[in-house]
């Protein structure tokens, strides 16, 4: 029999031993968590790559906020679509949707799958519905409580629902997008009368053809596009989405990694105990003539086998869990995603082996260097392995793992730093809690006193168990709090009669009718703000990006069109921080709230063709929100150039304002003085408070003004909440691994102390302690441990939550009394159960049998 075989033979004979089981279990948990995220990430990434050109629905896509009339000469296949938001209603139910009006050629690449019923895979069909019909997302069916074949209202036109959009290019479904999709025919948009001057529209032009003509066309087209228009090749399209996904993926991977690291702790403890129990075996084998090299092969074969077995089982668990995770994030994952890939299997197995090696090599090194003389002198300790070897082994294995998973040095730095700090804090807290436990122990009696004494005696173990379990409970609790608190906090913070609906896309001719309708139904509306969309392009004659340091150039404010308004009076909830408000005397901070500013005063429009004006006329004044000014290095006196449609507008910053964003009033980054934008097509926006008793007014409003978009804040928050809940449920699934890993640490440390505990139990039982007394003592110990972990986790979660609420979201800090009950209870249950299951036989084995076993 070869040495490796001998090792495996010994391993098989010892398979029932507790250490192997814990080691294997910890490995399965760690690898399971890593492979869950690995599999899913890989499937989504491959789905993106495999879609390729299908992702855009074309080889080349041009998006523009206004129609493009002239194109360079080409002989490519073309298709055009128009995208806009509008209300879709049926009876009293109404919902904001993203409408895409398409021609018969759409999409040029890939396919749109249309199904007859929700949750079906559907068949590829042209995206253009039959005349008088629409295709809708299955989500919309539920929201409007309707079915395929029913009629819905869009603006002033009625359409029949002819099918459900099961799949369309560029969409992986689920999380992305708040407003469900509706496909309709381009030639039927007119009939809806939804589109108003100033409506937010996106024109999508698709091109497909051979690479050379495409490249020539693209080169010819580029110089003619302005900053509001985008040319997207199929590669860039995928890259953009992949980039966004990669960020999310990193964080999921790191969450999984925490479970793996906790598993590493459990593995290290189990491996240490395994080595401890096998010093005699190793010494005996050395007596029989085994050399260090032979022992190395023998134990390495055992470890490798366990590593492969645990990793493969972990991969199997991961394969199952990723499916659950996928269906949480993408409800139709089965039909949309490619099957499991091979790469994550390799990554997970290598992670498992690396974790196992890092965690158990120090123990193994001691094992193979055990002196043979130990067979005669049991007290002889194995040769010490230099501490630095252990540290280097474990440390470098872990760092390697983290670096590999994150693939981002900065993120690794932050992660390792944060985790290190958290572990340090937890160890400190655990120590303090144990000191407090000493006080409790003094005043307690009976089995509780015995149990607490055990906890305090195994101080190192207790600290480790407490730390691991606190970490697991803390992260689980934090996530639950983030989910419930932020959304609830946001809702609660709204003043009772704050506007809860936004009315968008109000055409100039509708303003009076809308005001009349609202006052007739006694609804309080905010001021009405005219709104045009424009992109900030220059500052003091320079392209805006050139004036910024590289790290600020990626600002969202520069990439999108801003809503620009004009008003003579400073809106309520706004405060001038620098400069002076439009045309008010120098030094005066005009904070008067005013009546509706319709902004229809006549004034000379300041439109001209130079996109980078050096100076604007003195009367062209704007007020800029202070946060935006800070992000873009803007100051009072700077001249900004905007691209509005095909017009360029320049204006000088005369004031910087703070804005109370959560006031639920229409708020703006940039407010022009009246008279500067009036010549541009504008629609208006207002907010309105609809009391719960008056919600029945809304369907009537939607019917009366079908072109006006009604944004219900409640629905918006509910939407955000739903998406949030999806993502958090996914992360919570991963945290299940974390809790399991925490339990593995508890079990591993308990196993490590099992011999000592058994000796104590034997002694106590010999001295007359009843079995029930010992059992109660054990329960007391583990429940105390779980309760302590729960209390520590509650404290950590409260502090973290307070920081998040206060710093990140500016929400009031509030305590969570239930947390202080739930977490200790959960801790008591989980630690109590795992502790009792690990140690229960101590109280059951007759003392005589225990004594013989110990000998």
């Amino acid at each position, binding site marked *: *029999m070869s*040495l490796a075989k*001998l090792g495996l*033979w*010994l391993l098989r*004979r*010892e398979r*029932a*031993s507790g250490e192997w089981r814990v080691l294997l279990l910890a490995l399965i948990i760690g690898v399971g968590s890593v492979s869950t995220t690995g599999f899913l990430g890989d499937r989504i990434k491959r789905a993106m790559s495999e879609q390729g050109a299908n992702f855009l629905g074309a080889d080349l896509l041009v998006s523009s906020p206004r129609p493009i009339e002239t194109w360079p000469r080409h002989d490519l296949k073309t298709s055009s679509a128009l995208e806009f938001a509008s209300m879709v209603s049926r009876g009293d139910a109404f919902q904001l949707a993203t409408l895409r009006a398409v021609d018969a050629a759409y999409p040029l690449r890939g396919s749109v799958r249309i199904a007859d019923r929700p949750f079906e895979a559907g068949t590829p069909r042209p995206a253009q519905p039959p005349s008088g019909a629409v295709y809708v997302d299955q989500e919309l069916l539920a929201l409007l409580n309707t079915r395929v074949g029913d009629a819905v209202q869009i603006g002033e036109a009625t359409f029949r629902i002819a099918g459900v959009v099961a799949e369309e290019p560029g969409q992986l479904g689920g999380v992305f997008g708040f407003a469900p999709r509706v496909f309709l025919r381009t030639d039927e948009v007119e009939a809806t009368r939804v589109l108003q001057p100033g409506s937010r529209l996106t024109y999508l032009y698709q091109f497909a053809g051979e690479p050379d003509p495409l490249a020539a066309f693209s080169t010819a087209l580029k110089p003619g596009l302005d900053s509001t228009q985008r040319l997207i090749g199929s590669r860039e399209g995928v890259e953009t989405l992949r980039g966004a996904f990669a960020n999310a993926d990193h964080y999921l991977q790191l969450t999984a990694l925490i479970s793996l690291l906790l598993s590493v702790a459990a593995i290290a403890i189990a491996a240490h105990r395994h080595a401890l129990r096998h010093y*005699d*075996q190793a010494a*005996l*084998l*050395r*007596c*029989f*003539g*085994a*050399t*260090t*090299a*032979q022992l190395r092969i023998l134990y390495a074969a055992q470890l490798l086998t366990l590593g492969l077995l645990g990793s493969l089982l972990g991969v199997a668990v991961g394969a199952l869990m990723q499916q659950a995770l996928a269906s949480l994030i993408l409800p139709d994952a089965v039909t949309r995603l490619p099957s499991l890939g091979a790469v994550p299997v390799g990554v997970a197995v290598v992670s498992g082996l690396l974790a196992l090696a890092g965690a158990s090599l120090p123990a193994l090194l001691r094992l193979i260097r055990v*002196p*043979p*003389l130990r*067979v*005669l*002198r*049991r007290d002889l300790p194995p040769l010490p392995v230099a501490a630095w070897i252990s540290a280097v082994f474990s440390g470098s294995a872990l760092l390697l793992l983290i670096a590999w998973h994150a693939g981002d040095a900065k993120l690794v730095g932050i992660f390792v730093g944060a985790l290190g700090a958290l572990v340090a804090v937890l160890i400190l807290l655990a120590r303090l809690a144990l000191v407090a436990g000493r006080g409790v122990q003094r005043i307690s009696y009976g089995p509780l006193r015995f149990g607490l004494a055990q906890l305090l005696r195994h101080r190192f173990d207790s600290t480790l168990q407490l730390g691991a379990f606190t970490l697991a409970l803390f992260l689980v609790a934090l996530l639950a709090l983030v989910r419930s608190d932020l959304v609830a906090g946001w809702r609660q913070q709204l003043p009772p009669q704050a506007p809860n609906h936004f009315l968008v896309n109000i055409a100039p001719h509708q303003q009076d009718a809308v005001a009349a309708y609202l006052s007739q139904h006694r609804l309080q509306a905010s001021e009405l703000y005219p709104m045009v969309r424009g992109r900030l392009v220059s500052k003091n004659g320079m392209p805006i990006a050139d004036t910024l340091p590289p790290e600020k150039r990626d600002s969202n404010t520069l990439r999108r069109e801003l809503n620009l308004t004009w008003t003579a009076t400073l809106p309520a909830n706004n405060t001038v921080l620098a400069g002076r408000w439009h045309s008010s005397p120098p030094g005066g901070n005009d904070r008067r709230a005013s009546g509706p500013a319709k902004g229809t005063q006549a004034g000379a429009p300041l439109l001209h063709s130079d996109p980078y004006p050096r100076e604007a006329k003195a009367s062209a004044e704007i007020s800029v929100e202070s946060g935006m000014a800070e992000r873009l290095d803007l100051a009072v006196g700077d001249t900004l150039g905007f691209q509005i449609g095909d017009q360029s507008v320049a204006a000088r910053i005369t004031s910087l304002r703070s804005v109370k964003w959560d006031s639920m009033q229409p708020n703006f980054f940039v407010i022009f003085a009246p008279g500067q934008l009036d010549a541009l097509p504008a629609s208006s926006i207002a907010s309105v408070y609809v009391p719960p008793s008056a919600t029945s007014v809304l369907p009537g409003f939607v019917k009366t003004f079908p072109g006006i978009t009604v944004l219900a804040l409640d629905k918006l928050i509910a939407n955000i909440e739903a998406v949030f809940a999806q993502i958090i449920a996914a992360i919570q699934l991963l945290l299940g691994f974390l809790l399991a890993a925490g339990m593995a640490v508890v079990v591993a440390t308990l196993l490590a102390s099992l011999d000592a505990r058994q000796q104590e139990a034997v002694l106590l039982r010999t001295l007359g302690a009843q079995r029930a007394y010992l059992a109660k003592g054990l329960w007391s110990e583990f429940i105390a441990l779980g309760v302590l972990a729960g209390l520590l986790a509650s404290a950590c979660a409260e502090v973290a939550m307070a920081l998040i609420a206060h710093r990140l979201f500016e929400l009031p800090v509030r305590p969570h009394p239930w947390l202080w009950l739930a977490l200790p209870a959960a801790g008591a249950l989980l630690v109590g159960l795992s502790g009792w299951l690990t140690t229960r036989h101590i109280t059951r084995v007759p003392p005589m049998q225990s004594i*013989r*076993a110990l*000998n």
Partner: protein
Amino acid sequence: MTPAARAQFPAAIVAARALSQRVSTADGTLAILSEVELAVKAGETLAITGASGSGKSTLLGLLAGLDQPSAGEIELLGQRLNDLDEDARARLRAGRVGFVFQSFQLLPALTALENILLPLELAGRADARERAAHWLDRVGLAARAGHTPRQLSGGEQQRVAIARAFATDPEIVFADEPTGNLDADTGARIIELLFELNDSARTTLILVTHDDALASRCQRRLHLVAGRANEAARA
């Protein structure tokens, strides 16, 4: 081994010259063995006796190459142990040296048969399983082949350990207090078995014991007093 040393231990299977073992303690250096001289020929039986702490087990460990002496020379199976490192000494022992311990040292996860199999497998013997079964039968435990040490009495465990020691056909067997954990009757039966197997295999036997009855069965006896040897011929 130097020619001079070889000349000094002709035909000795194990020999020691000026063997000393000292350990450092908090109170200074402690001499466990001092200047021990010994030569055991192939086939001889030697009992090392002495009070607790007299250095018996230390001497046994040194002779078997389980430890290195502070001073002096040891020769085992024709090799000077002082020149060999830990691994070379292990290689020298493989299949050629057997051990019997006071606490039996059976692996708890293995059955009686498997415990005997272990050194045979390690020595790479092709007929390992047959040999193990044969030796289990020799010690009268063929019926208990599938039992683990927990299911065996102390005497039975020591019989398995003896079978394990002889199974590889060693040239020398070291036994450390082989009856130390057994009652008198069982101990006597174990002694019988040990010597019977030793005689038939013509193995050299070096054992450490407190037990006069056991020591008296050996041809030679080395008595240790505070680490110094005093060899008495067999009474």
